[in-house]
């Protein structure tokens, strides 16, 4: 390959204006050079012989006249065994390795291969010579932790090939040739266990996309029961700061019923990532008994890390998710927060002096967000098996106002909306999902009839509460008052969940079905009281007992005992017609 060198002509923040002579690609990667430091950059606009390039690092010290070395490649990630358990920055540099090399701080211009070249993997061939294959077909497998990692024909090799030779079972490192293929023109191609894929282009090596229909159990009661998420679906969590978006994401990343969780910490606090990466190795995955870290991968580009890399980080994450989907696995991608990513777009757009849209976000914001969420979904692969990517993105709307462009663009393309409300979080009602505003288009885990009844009670309770603010408690009939108390009871004991209690933090689908059934039955019971004070008193006691019930493990006697106690309490107030 011939060298393509440009010259820097202007510097404005992290945006460079570069003069070039030989052809360059849109989104091509280049390296700006200050003495012996090379700073990774990406072409974002081309005009005449000038390319505008965003630098993924701090540009202090660059001069006009410095060299820009074009690489001829788009921004890509390395795909191969060894991705899981890693902690990457937005450009797929492993952070622990960088820490070993540079100490406490992230020095600019230091890049590291995403995958370790020294690790040896035990390869078992699956294809044989003479087989007809194409992109995405499995050549063999290697064990990666608890998963069988498929070594596939690189996705960019989209023609038909005949397998000439596959390596026998044995130990190989990533760059060893494990298969030789021949195309129709008779050219041979060597395949290793690692391949590159440009992050901004979706991987499409599958037979067809299916409709998401199976619920993805998150073990958060209000989500699974009222606003479920489907495997291969998309959902968003908008909410003002302090409403508990991140805690909700952390809980989901722990308990969600999927094979692989990819966490894209995009422009958020470093402390939150640290909690995940220090705690996960110690936690066991209830499904496998192994460390939770074995199914987790973290892409972490926190708020103080360079902005352009923040934009890249969500693409890096979704590309890796697509890679594991190709192995017929169910992947959950949690992006926190998509607003920061949108802001990164805005910063670049501003420096490019593009005509701004609403709140100075670029006009293409909507299509960018839509195409990101569209990379989720359930697919039937060429071999008939299915894999899925579920995408859950948090949104941090300015001022907690959902009318802003990022929230609105996101709502158009997702299948479930988990709106967090400031009022609920102020009243310490966690998770602060608004039970009246949120919605979901996916099927849930409990009976639909019960859910409808519960919604009905919540709505009525809310109406009574609004009315009571005007006419006061004395102006409310006892009947209405009981409805209000019932809705509060449902809220306190079922919708709210203590994320920090060992038992209450996660409720599996079976327990949800059971407990929800019981609670809805309690709501259905016609009750008789002498007055409002006795009613309130009764519900306070009932709430306390039910909360104790939530904190009791289902296998212990306590669970049965408390249930019995609830029955007894109820029998006393039941109205016998």
């Amino acid at each position, binding site marked *: 390959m011939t060298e393509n060198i440009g010259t820097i002509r202007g510097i404005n923040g992290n945006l460079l204006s570069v003069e070039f002579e030989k052809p360059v690609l849109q989104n091509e990667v280049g390296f700006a050079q200050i003495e012996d430091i090379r700073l990774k950059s990406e072409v974002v606009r081309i005009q005449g012989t000038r390319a505008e390039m965003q630098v993924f690092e701090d540009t202090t*010290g660059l001069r006009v006249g410095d060299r820009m070395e074009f690489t001829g490649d788009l921004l890509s990630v390395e795909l191969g065994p060894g991705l899981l358990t890693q902690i990457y920055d937005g450009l797929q540099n492993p952070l622990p390795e960088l*820490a070993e090399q540079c100490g*406490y701080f992230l020095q600019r211009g230091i890049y590291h291969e995403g995958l370790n070249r020294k690790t040896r993997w035990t390869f078992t061939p699956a294809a044989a010579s003479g087989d007809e294959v194409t992109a995405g077909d499995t050549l063999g497998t290697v064990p990666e932790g608890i998963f069988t990692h498929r070594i596939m024909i690189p996705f960019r090799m989209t023609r038909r090939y005949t397998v000439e030779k596959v390596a026998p079972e044995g130990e190989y490192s990533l760059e060893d040739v494990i298969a030789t293929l021949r195309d129709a023109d008779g050219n041979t191609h060597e395949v290793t266990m690692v391949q590159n894929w440009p992050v901004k282009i979706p991987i499409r090596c599958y037979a067809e996309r299916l409709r998401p229909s199976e619920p993805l159990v998150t073990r958060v009661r209000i989500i699974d029961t009222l606003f479920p998420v489907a495997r291969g679906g998309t959902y968003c969590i908008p909410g003002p700061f302090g409403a508990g978006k991140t805690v909700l994401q952390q809980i989901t990343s722990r308990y969600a019923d999927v094979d692989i969780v990819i966490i894209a910490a995009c422009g958020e606090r*470093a*402390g939150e990532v640290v909690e995940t990466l220090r705690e996960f190795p110690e936690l066991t995955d209830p499904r496998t008994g192994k460390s939770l870290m074995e199914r987790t991968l973290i892409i972490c580009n*926190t708020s103080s890390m360079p902005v352009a890399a923040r934009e890249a980080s969500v693409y890096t994450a979704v590309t890796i998710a697509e890679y594991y989907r190709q192995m017929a696995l169910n992947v959950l991608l949690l992006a926190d927060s998509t607003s920061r990513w949108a802001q990164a777009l805005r910063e670049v757009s*501003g420096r490019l002096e593009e005509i701004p849209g609403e709140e100075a976000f670029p006009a293409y914001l909507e299509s960018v967000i839509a195409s990101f969420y569209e990379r989720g979904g359930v697919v039937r692969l060429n071999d008939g098996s299915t894999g899925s990517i579920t995408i859950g993105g948090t949104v*941090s709307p300015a001022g907690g*106002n959902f009318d802003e462009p990022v929230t609105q663009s996101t709502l158009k393309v997702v299948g479930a909306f988990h709106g967090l409300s400031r009022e609920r979080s102020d009243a310490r009602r966690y998770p602060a999902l608004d039970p009246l505003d949120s919605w979901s288009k996916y099927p849930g885990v409990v009976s639909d009839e019960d859910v409808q009844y519960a919604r009905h009670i919540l709505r009525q309770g809310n109406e009574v509460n609004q009315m009571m603010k005007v006419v006061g408690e004395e102006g409310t009939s006892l009947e209405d008052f009981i409805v209000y108390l019932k809705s509060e009871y449902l809220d306190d004991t079922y919708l709210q969940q203590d994320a920090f209690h060992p038992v209450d933090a996660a409720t599996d689908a079976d327990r949800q079905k059971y407990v929800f059934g019981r609670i809805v039955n309690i709501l259905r019971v016609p009750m008789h009281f002498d007055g409002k004070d006795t009613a309130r008193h009764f519900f306070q006691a009932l709430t306390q007992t039910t909360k104790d019930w939530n904190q009791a493990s289902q296998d212990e006697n306590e669970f049965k005992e408390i249930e019995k106690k609830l029955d007894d309490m109820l029998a006393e107030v039941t109205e016998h017609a």
Partner: protein
Amino acid sequence: MHKVYKRIERIAGNVVMLEAGDVSYRELAEVSSSQGTSLAQVIRIDGNRVHLQVFAGGRGISTDAHVRFLGHAMQVPFSSALMGRVFTGGGLPRDRGPAIAQNMIDIGGPSVNPAKRIIPRNMVRTGIPMIDVFNTLVESQKLPIFSVAGEPYNPLLARIALQAEVDVIILGGMGLKHDDYLYFRDTLEEQGALSRSVLFIHTAADPIVECLLVPDVALAVAEQFALEGKRVLVLLTDMTNFSDALKEIAITMEQIPSNRGYPGDLYSQLAARYEKAVDFDDAGSITVLAATTMPGDDVTHPIPDNTGYITEGQFYLRNGRIEPFGSLSRLKQLVNNKTREDHRNIMNTMIQLYAAFRETLEKQAMGFRMSSWDRKLLKYGDRFEKEMMDLSVNIPLEEALDLGWRILADCFEPAETALPTKLIEQFWPKEKGGEESKK
């Protein structure tokens, strides 16, 4: 010897433009004209046109001013000799002490590798129940105090700084009133804390560009102390002035504003500063407490709004009290399970009941009849405000928890609190009353 340029093409606000070659991005320059000499920093290069941000402001700069580039970016001195001293945002002495120029360090350095951070684990005891019990402050936390102008946020910052057990206090003052600066200096001195403090002060009368430098300078110095193993507390007051300075420069540079005139990168700019808060696995820590005044008491204003998304919680200071609603310490969960087993439950229950009290107050204001439950809440809310929320209360956490139980027991039956039965058996006071008569 560096070349001297003698022709300035454009002066707009605090930004001057001249034609120069071989200049690097963010390099410092010295601009001298008849009105004096000031440092300036390169903020944009377009071909041979170089834009400089002049620290002392553009006023009085002549078109034939002499500009000399220094060949390095902004630096500050670092040594233990900084302790007890007061500097400007540009790093020059503000007291009568000598200038310090050895061991220069870069400011605005790279961010800490998340892999080298650890989960914060130490509580910072302040003696203020609204903080210790309800929103525990944690070492290495970054936390703003949201308030309106006129609230006592500076005294609160000073009090926390003095009571917290830290090795070094660094104060970054931005757009401070001169008497506020003197207040901080005198308070630290009276309490004998000045000898472990470094002050970087930009007062409202100083050039606006220096205001932008204060957090970077203060945090660069803090970082060095932390690397030496010290526990550092950084106070930044007031970050609203810093953000307004950013806005001013952005508008001068003709950037497209995003929201109410603030630049689109306000979030990233604030985050770059706040994220310096850190707990190193084998060195010291930096805790950042900042004051953010909310223009018009509007929390959705871009400055408090962006800040809230960056920081790990916030304290609302309103009517001289820390508001329990909205105030939040996101890191409290990391430490309040190790204090006392009733801490979390007391925290949640008392706040929920206080919320109910507020609702009752509304009902009362509208003239509705008070039920017996309402009367209990009124009694409770009153005691809670007097004995817990008042900022003059100064008691250790454990006493505050005991006090909480006593207040609950004086006002309610155990079941009305919805506290877990186990805790009630252990902590519910056997005898009622007493506390009020003691006070």
